[in-house]
């Protein structure tokens, strides 16, 4: 099975040799680190364990705050409020966390993204009947086989992300952490929109996401 169509782009070729070193090792290494927080979340859900929550808070609250502060200045000025909101949601929704579906950090990241989006809309006085949770609907349970495959893909995406050229990683960071649209990123970096789009596409190819889409 061929992984990627042949590409003339030198960046792509440079990335090729590094991409197949034992995917199992990556999964295990990644899985182990994640398991600690997965287990912690499950203890919080089942035993309503405040000490476990405290540990989780110490690790994730500073990340949530950093995420809040990288967003729009409007949301950044409410960073502490966002941290409280996100961590409280983590406590309240912990029993909905399913370790087979997502890594702990993915689950917490999506809550932070939802809260930041809702907060931004609230601060701008959007009058909307929808919350972020209505739009990013949690998906139904996948077949166990698919779930395993997805965990493996997640580990691969994480691994490959660290190997992206800086100019691509920088754009993805602006999109995901700063919450900017592609045109805003283009404006920020004084690049043509087409360049931003094509760098994102190159990054997607390397991460093997949407390889068959425009």
């Amino acid at each position, binding site marked *: 099975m061929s992984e990627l169509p042949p590409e003339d782009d030198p960046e792509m070729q440079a990335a090729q040799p590094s991409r197949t070193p034992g995917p199992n090792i990556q999964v295990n290494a990644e899985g182990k680190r994640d398991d600690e927080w997965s287990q912690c979340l499950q203890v919080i859900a089942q035993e309503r364990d405040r000490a476990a929550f405290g540990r989780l808070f110490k690790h994730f609250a*500073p990340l949530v705050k950093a995420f809040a502060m990288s967003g729009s200045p409007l949301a950044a000025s409410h960073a502490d409020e966002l941290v409280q909101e996100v961590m409280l949601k983590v406590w309240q929704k912990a029993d909905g966390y399913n370790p087979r579906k997502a890594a702990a950090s993915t689950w917490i990241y999506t809550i932070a993204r939802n809260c930041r989006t809702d907060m931004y809309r609230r601060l701008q006085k*959007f009058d909307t009947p929808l919350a972020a*949770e209505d739009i990013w609907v949690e998906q139904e349970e996948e077949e166990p086989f698919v779930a395993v495959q997805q965990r493996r893909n997640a580990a691969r995406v*994480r691994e490959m992300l660290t190997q992206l050229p800086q100019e691509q990683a920088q754009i993805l960071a602006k999109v995901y952490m700063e919450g900017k649209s592609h045109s805003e990123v283009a404006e920020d970096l004084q690049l043509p929109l087409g360049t931003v789009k094509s760098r994102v596409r190159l990054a997607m190819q390397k991460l093997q996401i949407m390889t068959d*889409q425009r």
Partner: protein
Amino acid sequence: MVTHHPDTRLLNEFASGSLPLAQSVAISVHLHFCDHCKRQVKALQDMGAQMFDTLEPAEVDDSLLDSVLNHLDDEAPLTYQSKASDVDSDESPVLVQRLMNGDYQDLQWSRINKALQIARLRTGDPKHEFALYHIKAGGSIPLHTHKGTELTLVLEGSFSDEEGVYQQGDFLMRDAEDQHTPTASKTADCICIGVLDAPIRFKPWNYRLLNPFLQLQAS
């Protein structure tokens, strides 16, 4: 089977939360029908989580933990989170039902011509029009142009235009310069979601008088 998907930019902006609300709804409804894009969005979220995980941690005051601990026993606000409903069921996606506050027949449809009716739905997005288009079997949407982009998602039936055939769940994006004449299949009515970032303009002059978006613009 879904064969037309959102492009890389749209899915990335959707997954990261930077896509405007009305457009995000259209993508979310596409995901309801499309397992392929659902998996892509999942992968993109894993990517986002990886970046989140490697952020430089910001200093959090201890008082914040105390304050959160004090609120742990507060009753969680009631949420009615929509679950992804079964694609095979006859019902429209939960998200659309919620915006409609009921079903298709409960909406206020404006009649544009014999073949086309439009119902505008409120998403709260101040910069985008979100509407349902009901095209009678065999009928067409008049030739039109628009500023900005137009996103279309097929909810029921199918339609075709100069470039292809679109079935339930198919997603397409048209830019301002594209002029097209979507025509519903002869066998069934077609209902689509249309998201516009500027009021639509129909070519023949007489439609302008009937165009609900132009009235909205004036109000």
